[in-house]
């Protein structure tokens, strides 16, 4: 084990904060902000941080869950985290508006509204269609343009069930056996 060279480490975080500041103050894009820092120092924010900067821009510098771009990013983050897990290894990428590319698969389904968050918006479970593992609890994404009919269908179906049953994640069958 050894300590790596200074030039190899820490190229990302401080540069990302710096880039966020430059973007807001000078009203420039992500690439311009980073290249402006690169003019004076060898920095290279990782792809995850670059994406966050883009989301920051798309949210008009106020990233919170009321902004579609922020919610979509959370969803993509969640999908990436799930992708490597042992519970569900399917490709879980969902792009609700299609802004970040064509929605390529619909392995996930929205499984109804049961709860309401502090702003009064309903909360939706996203589950893997195959193993029923709950992927995330996110605010209802309003701007669903594709799959709209299925969404309302599942929502109406879930309302008829008891809320306790609906909120209990169903395990895959084989996990229940001894």
């Amino acid at each position, binding site marked *: 084990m050894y300590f790596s060279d200074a030039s190899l480490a*820490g190229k990302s*975080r401080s540069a990302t*904060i710096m880039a*966020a500041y430059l973007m807001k103050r000078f009203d420039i894009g992500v690439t311009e902000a980073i290249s402006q820092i690169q003019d004076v120092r060898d920095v290279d924010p990782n792809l995850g941080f670059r994406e*966050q900067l883009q989301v920051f821009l798309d949210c008009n510098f106020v990233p919170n869950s009321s902004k579609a771009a922020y919610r979509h990013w959370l969803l993509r983050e969640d999908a990436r985290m799930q992708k490597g897990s042992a519970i569900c290894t399917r490709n879980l990428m969902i792009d609700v508006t299609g802004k970040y590319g064509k929605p390529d698969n619909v392995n996930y389904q929205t499984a109804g509204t049961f709860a309401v968050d502090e702003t009064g918006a309903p909360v939706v479970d996203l589950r893997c269609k195959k193993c029923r593992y709950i992927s995330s609890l996110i605010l209802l994404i309003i701007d669903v343009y594709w799959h709209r009919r299925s969404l309302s269908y599942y929502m109406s179906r879930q309302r008829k069930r008891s809320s306790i049953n609906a909120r209990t994640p169903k395990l895959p069958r084989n996990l229940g056996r001894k």
Partner: protein
Amino acid sequence: MQQVIPGLYISSWYTIFASDALRNEGITHVLTVMKDFHESEILQPFKRMIIEALDDPDEHLIDYFEAAIQWIDDALAEGGKVMIHWYLMNYVFL
């Protein structure tokens, strides 16, 4: 330590050992981005902001942007000089 725009500097971890350089540049504010921060005596005279974040693509750095920008703006408005630095050694296991 390099100046990106007037009054705003970017730096690595090692700069905190060069307190003379910081004093010569007239740095007044230090923004540290690291996890598990251990307070250093060298940084006592500076006004501090600490963002606890790992150098990891999954780190939600976006949640700190607003507060950090506000802090930098305030610091520059009162005529200060801000240095943003990270503060963690990368361990490489062989």
